[in-house]
């Protein structure tokens, strides 16, 4: 197989955002793909094409545009089905994003099935989107949250036999930490969850952009992801639920398209996935999700992984040379392409601000993981995250810019 580094320029050239340097000819060093990925030309073109050629509302019109939209939406749903290895398209609903999907799972399934004393098992790694909805569900049902602790490297410590017990109903974990890059062992979690009769919910917003997940082989019951992190459009996400589980999940949003019968005094719901697709879908975005998935497939997941690992390793090596930097989380070989760090004597906000001057775009703060930052014992970190279009020059520019930060804040004097 051809190593992606050889063809990385071809891949990068598919992203028009990099065609436009910053003022003074500064190149764009985009290191915030974990927050949202840039879009390849095919995705941009597809969105435009839908609007220019055949746009109409979905699942309503018999006229030709409506039929074309329906066909394209279903083709997109099928592409997601293939990516996830789901058994049926009916197990996949378009949502506004991973946050909405997780809210549907927590409220639609959780509230209906949880009893007082039941336990929801989360990890300390979770993004607020896979954390706060469960807190709300717990408050409403009398269930309890239990947390999987972390090892010093920021990986899941599953050694406590009490973690999975006969009160565990739901295990909800990230597929990849958005701060540490940690990759929880999903298959093991699935086995242990199922062994005590619990379901496994996976927040795949971070992990899916780096490789496909086979929901059947891995034993995942519910899964959430976002289009905009998959090199696709904003405003569209996916809710996957095993058929039997979706059937016993209440809708969270009510309105058009999601109903079966509406009477003056009550209504009944359409079958999944329509039950979870109330109102007008993000039609253009959902259709343009397909070229995003096709783009990832064209690069190839193995090549993508090899390339991202190379960048992460290079970043670890380069940052280790800079005084005062501490990187959090597992070593590059055991995590996704995310490098979160602090620099002694420099606030994350200053670092991000000064990096921006050098055209290096990173995220700073708690990254929607306040409990994790409490565990880390720091108020904020700086996060550099790599996508398929990044290259070793980007890593070098990050390191150079961090040296500039030290100089500007007079940390070496």
């Amino acid at each position, binding site marked *: 197989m051809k190593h992606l580094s050889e063809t990385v320029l071809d891949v990068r050239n598919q992203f028009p955002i990099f065609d436009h340097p910053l003022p003074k000819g500064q190149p764009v060093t985009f290191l915030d793909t974990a927050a949202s990925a840039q879009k390849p030309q095919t995705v941009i073109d597809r969105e435009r094409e839908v609007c220019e050629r055949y746009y109409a509302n979905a699942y309503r019109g018999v006229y030709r545009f409506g039929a074309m939209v329906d066909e394209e939406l279903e083709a997109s749903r099928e592409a997601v089905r293939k990516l996830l290895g789901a058994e049926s398209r009916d197990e996949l609903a378009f949502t506004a994003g991973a946050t909405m999907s997780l809210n549907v799972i927590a409220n639609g399934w959780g509230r209906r099935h949880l009893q007082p004393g039941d336990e929801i098992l989360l990890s300390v790694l979770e993004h607020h989107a896979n954390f706060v909805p469960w807190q709300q569900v717990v408050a409403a049902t009398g269930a309890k949250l239990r947390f999987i602790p972390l090892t010093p490297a920021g990986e899941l410590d599953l050694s406590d036999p009490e973690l999975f017990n006969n009160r565990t109903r739901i295990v909800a974990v990230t597929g990849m930490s958005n701060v540490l890059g940690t990759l929880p062992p999903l298959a093991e979690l699935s086995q242990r969850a199922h062994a005590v009769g619990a379901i496994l919910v996976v927040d795949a917003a971070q992990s899916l952009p780096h490789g496909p997940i086979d929901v059947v082989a891995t034993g995942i019951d519910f899964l959430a992801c976002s289009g905009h992190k998959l090199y696709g459009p904003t405003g569209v996400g996916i809710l996957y639920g095993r058929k039997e589980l979706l059937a016993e999940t209440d809708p969270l949003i009510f309105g058009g398209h999601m109903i079966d019968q509406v009477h003056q005094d009550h209504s009944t719901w359409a079958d999944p996935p329509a039950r979870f697709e109330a109102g007008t879908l993000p039609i253009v975005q959902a259709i343009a999700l397909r070229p995003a998935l096709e783009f990832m497939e064209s690069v190839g997941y193995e090549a993508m992984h090899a390339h991202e690992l190379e960048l992460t390793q290079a970043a670890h090596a380069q940052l280790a040379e800079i005084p005062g930097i501490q990187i959090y989380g597992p070593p590059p070989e055991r995590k996704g392409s995310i490098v979160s760090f602090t620099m002694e004597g420099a*606030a*994350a*906000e*200053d670092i991000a*601000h000064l990096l921006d*001057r050098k055209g290096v775009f990173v995220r*700073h*703060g708690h990254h929607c993981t306040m409990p994790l930052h409490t565990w880390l014992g720091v*108020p*904020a970190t700086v996060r550099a995250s790599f996508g398929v279009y990044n290259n070793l020059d980007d890593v070098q520019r990050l390191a150079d810019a961090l040296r500039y930060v030290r100089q*500007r*804040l*007079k940390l070496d004097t």
Partner: protein
Amino acid sequence: MNTVGLCTRAAFDQTQGACTLAATELMTLDELYEEFDFLPDWEDRCDFLIDLGMELPKLSSDEKIEPNRVHGCQSMVWLVTELDDSGDEPVLRVRANSDAMIVNGLIAVLLAIYDGKTPREVLDADAAEIFKRLELDRHLSSQRKNGLSGMVTRLRQLAAAAIVDLDQQAN
């Protein structure tokens, strides 16, 4: 002493670029206006704010405690205030620190507006207008604005409470 970046325009002119002004005193608003007018673009102004921030008087570690924290900022911010009635009129003394130097620079602007002012002057000051005059409103992220307005709100509440107290003492 060389504190490049902190020099006022006058000092800069005098020394042809080699600034020799020690910035031990906090800047006044007029000096800030002058400096901002002198600096051509936002990046230079930011640099100036960072320098200002690096020179901001530090709080002691026992003042950097949770009750003094200002929430709503991306970075850590601590705010310490007291009513100083040693002079003719009681004035609000304000000291604040952040771990971020750019934020300390913005704090220096707040101190220029509020520190050493009577409670009435604090309430009369229009921080939004001053930030507009300095064009900070256009360049600050919404989160930074939230943090700043959190500090402004706290100072205004203190001033309002001080006025009530002083009125009661007068009666």
